[in-house]
């Protein structure tokens, strides 16, 4: 069920970027657990393409922060075997697009081994993955691919929208005994070279350890007329849209899924049953995706709660184009969300 974010104890919190907050959880879990290690491309000397492992090689050494050759199939297979033998690997894949190289090892082996072995082998393996476009990196470095990963049984997937969730969801992934994927939109990391962080992606983050349960959505803004479901960057777009809509007298509730798998079906339905209208915003491809699944929740439970047809604001089913006007046209931006909400409100005023 959707839960508010608990207030942190005063005096123990700082404002962090998502990259720093996620990293803090990794440092903490690595200190507690000698079987945990990081493996991937550019994680040691560079500190991760997106800064996920800055400072770790200095503290944990080359034996636990392992730079690999550019061999995703190889090192993901190796990490899976190490996990089956009692280690707790953290695998960095900087761009989700690269899972195309190594997907067999993920979906045919890592994700299935606990099930196929009848529970004899656990695979406590966490992926740290960046995704998303909006900075003109074109078709092979801008995808989102929630559905590609989410379609495979056996993988849990989270995507935080701010620094507080980045730390708590990372800790949950690292403590879980399954294959988990911690995905962050590149424009949310807080990296200078991808623009300043969105203000709401920065958050006050407690110094102490905490976890956020899988499958628990978060209501960022309450409203009565329409539910806007988002995740990752689209939460921020939805919040901006809600501000704009409020000035026009439309009260939008913004629900952040936080987990793709498991999906908070209860939370989604509860909000839509309250508002009676649904817009889903996602940067992944439209068809067979997160937006479809969210609509299915309502269709299966009780479509009569809807006062108007639900609307999806997703990536059109085309590869990500390079040219700025074409990419901007395809993104699930604030304007598209506002227009979608208005289309659900027709006839109300």
């Amino acid at each position: 069920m959707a839960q508010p974010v608990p207030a942190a104890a005063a005096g123990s919190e700082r404002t962090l970027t998502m990259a720093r907050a996620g990293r803090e959880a990794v440092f903490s879990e690595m200190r507690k657990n000698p079987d945990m290690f990081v493996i991937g491309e550019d994680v040691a000397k560079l500190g991760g393409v997106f800064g996920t492992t800055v400072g770790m090689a200095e503290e944990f050494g080359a034996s636990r922060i392992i730079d690999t050759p550019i061999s995703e199939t190889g090192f993901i297979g190796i990490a899976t075997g190490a996990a089956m033998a009692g280690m707790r690997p953290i695998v960095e894949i900087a761009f989700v697009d690269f899972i195309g190289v190594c997907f067999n090892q993920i979906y045919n082996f890592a994700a299935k081994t606990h099930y196929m072995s009848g529970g004899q082998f656990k695979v406590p393996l966490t992926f740290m993955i960046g995704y998303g476009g909006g900075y003109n990196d074109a078709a092979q470095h801008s995808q989102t691919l929630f559905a590609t990963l989410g379609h495979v049984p056996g993988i849990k997937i989270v995507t935080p929208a701010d620094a507080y969730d980045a730390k708590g969801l990372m800790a949950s992934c690292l403590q879980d005994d399954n294959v988990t994927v911690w995905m962050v939109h590149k424009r949310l990391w807080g990296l200078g070279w991808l623009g300043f962080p969105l203000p709401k992606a920065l958050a006050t983050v407690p110094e102490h350890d905490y976890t956020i349960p899988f499958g628990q959505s978060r209501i960022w803004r309450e409203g009565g007329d329409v539910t806007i479901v988002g995740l990752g960057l689209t939460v921020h777009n939805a919040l901006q849209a809600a501000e704009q809509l409020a000035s026009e007298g439309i009260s939008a509730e913004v629900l952040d899924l936080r987990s793709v798998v498991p999906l908070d079906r209860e939370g989604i339905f509860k909000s839509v049953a309250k508002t009676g209208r649904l817009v889903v915003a996602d940067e992944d491809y439209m068809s067979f995706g997160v937006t479809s699944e969210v609509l299915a929740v309502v269709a299966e439970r009780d479509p009569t709660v809807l006062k108007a047809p639900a609307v999806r604001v997703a990536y059109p089913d085309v590869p990500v184009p390079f040219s700025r006007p074409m990419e901007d046209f395809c993104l699930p931006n604030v304007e598209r969300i506002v227009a979608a909400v208005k289309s659900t409100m027709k006839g109300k005023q």
Partner: protein
Amino acid sequence: MKPTRDQRLWMYEAMYRSRRLDDAVLAAYMEGKTPVFHMGKGPLPGEMHQSFGQEPCAAGVCVHLGKDDAVGAGHRPHHVAVARGVDLKKMVAELFGKKTGLSGGRGGHMHLYSAEVNFFSSGIIAEGMGPGAGMALARKMQGKPGIAVAYIGDGAANQGAFHEVLNMVGLWKLPFICVIEDNKYGVSVHKKDSTAIDRNSDRAAAYGIAGEFVSGNDPDLIFEAAGRAVQRARSGQGGSILELETERLHGHFIGDSGGYRPDAERKAMKDPIPAYRDRLLAEKVSSVAEMTSLEAKVQGQVDEAMRFGRESEYPDATDALKRLYA
């Protein structure tokens, strides 16, 4: 290092157990599949890749392994599982899809897992390379004894995983052995039509690891080469490719008549198990009486395992929805 008498008898027994198992599985597999062959019918449905002829590759390597070691096999896993000491009853029950199987019927014949002997198999070609090497890495990181062995076929040496993983095995000096069972065929395609060089063991030079090719499908020769590879791995000298010339006496799976193989080649195929038996008797390693007694014991174990597999109950259908997550 030559095998001792006990080791030679152990190897014969492991090969014989695998063979008797495959004989029994073949007979049971054909139940319900005649006169019209339908892979989904009968008590043993699905694809069935048997090990006829390849038994020396399993016995000659696994005889060197202990409880701390890990073994991964491919889509043709029976002989390796048997030589590794996977519980025969639970394994057969898994082939039958029964509740008492290794994975409660979720795995099947290509996906045999036994945590108690650090064994797994995978139906995707070369997919065990990474996990096998990862088990070697885990042992090294944890400061624990033990090495890891991954079995693949000669066809799998053309998969990317083979090359990516062996590069890291060489780079990190992992205690890992890649056993290539060279039966000369990837389903129907001959090695000479798929592989640019004669011997995949030569590819070891590209990764700074040792490579050895063993001709003859001979358990004693495999034993010696495997002993060298195991010694290298245990002493921290790193990984090896062990390419073992072997023979796929049957088709790729049951139902494949192997019509793509030339007649002369088929006629020249030799069964390694009777040959090894003859040698052990000729060299007076064993007596007919001892062999007969050993064979009777093994046959009894196989019969018991087959009975156990047949008579065990199927899982509840809704168990399909359990065990996705730990």
